[in-house]
């Protein structure tokens, strides 16, 4: 029974280690990229389209709609980042039911890397939107006393993001492994179906939380408030 796919080492040369986390990350990436390349090779405008194009259009449309609802901003800017996060996590979680496939998200290294991406994306989008000084002023709102708490909050939510995804996926695979030892016949299948559900929900939660964090760093609410105030001032 392996707790994390990091401990399954396929190849090692000095400090360079190729473990199951890396390999199955590559498998997931290859699947995502390969399917997308095959489908987008023959795109057609209008209503006449192939099955693959229809599926991908539905996926992208849903992502766009969800991002618009969560962030209340134009989704186009965030679509590539949030969509990549969601598709990668959901695919690696769902493929975890295949025997022999170790979910890369069941390793703390992968989830920590994803969380660090979110950690850096928040100031990047924020500065792109408002400029450096206006973004940094966010940290001393409402008073400068809150500065350390804001910084601690920024760090701890990154940790929470990583550990939440890791804990859920790891517990799912661990429960399946334990149950196969205890009741090998029918019950592990039910728990596997349950872990698919958990995996999809966790992927959704990860991307929604990433979107919420990014949206809180960008100027959306502030800008619309100012606009509304300006309009109100303009009115006689």
């Amino acid at each position: 029974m392996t707790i994390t796919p990091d401990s399954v080492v396929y190849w090692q040369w000095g400090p360079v280690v190729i473990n199951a986390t890396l390999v199955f990350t590559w498998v997931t990436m290859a699947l995502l990229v390969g399917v997308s390349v095959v489908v987008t090779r023959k795109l057609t405008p209008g209503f006449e389209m192939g099955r693959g194009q229809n599926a991908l259009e539905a996926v992208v449309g849903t992502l766009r709609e969800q991002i618009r609802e969560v962030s209340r901003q134009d989704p186009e800017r965030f679509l590539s980042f949030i969509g990549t996060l969601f598709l990668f996590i959901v695919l690696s979680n769902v493929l975890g039911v295949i025997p022999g496939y170790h979910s890369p998200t069941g390793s703390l290294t992968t989830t920590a890397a994803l969380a660090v991406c979110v950690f850096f994306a928040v100031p990047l989008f924020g500065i792109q939107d408002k400029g450096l000084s206006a973004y940094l002023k966010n940290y001393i709102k409402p008073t400068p006393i809150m500065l350390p708490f804001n910084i601690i909050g920024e760090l701890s939510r990154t940790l929470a993001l990583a550990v939440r995804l890791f804990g859920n996926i790891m517990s799912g695979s661990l429960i399946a492994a334990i149950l196969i030892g205890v009741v090998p016949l029918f019950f592990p299948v039910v728990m596997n179906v349950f872990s698919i559900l958990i995996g999809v929900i966790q992927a959704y939660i990860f991307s929604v939380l990433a979107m919420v964090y990014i949206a809180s760093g960008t100027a959306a609410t502030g800008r619309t408030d100012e606009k509304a105030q300006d309009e109100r001032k303009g009115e006689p």
Partner: protein
Amino acid sequence: MDSATLVSLVSIAVSGITIAIGSIGPALGEGRALAQALSAMAQQPDEAQQITRTLFVGLAMVESTAIYCFVVSIILIFANPFWRYFLAQ
């Protein structure tokens, strides 16, 4: 009783206590949140989608404390640093 036995004994007992106590709070909190969301959805069925999304995100936030406890107890059992120290000696 030598110290290795003591460490393993304490680790196993504490990991059980960790997950037992650590799951009480989130369970109560999630139950409250779910009940509130259900009554809100019964009052305003039009807002069900919005409420469900917020509910999921909130449940994940609440649940993460239980997940921390779970991770700590797993570390105590399978990857205990003190245990390793005594095994190395």
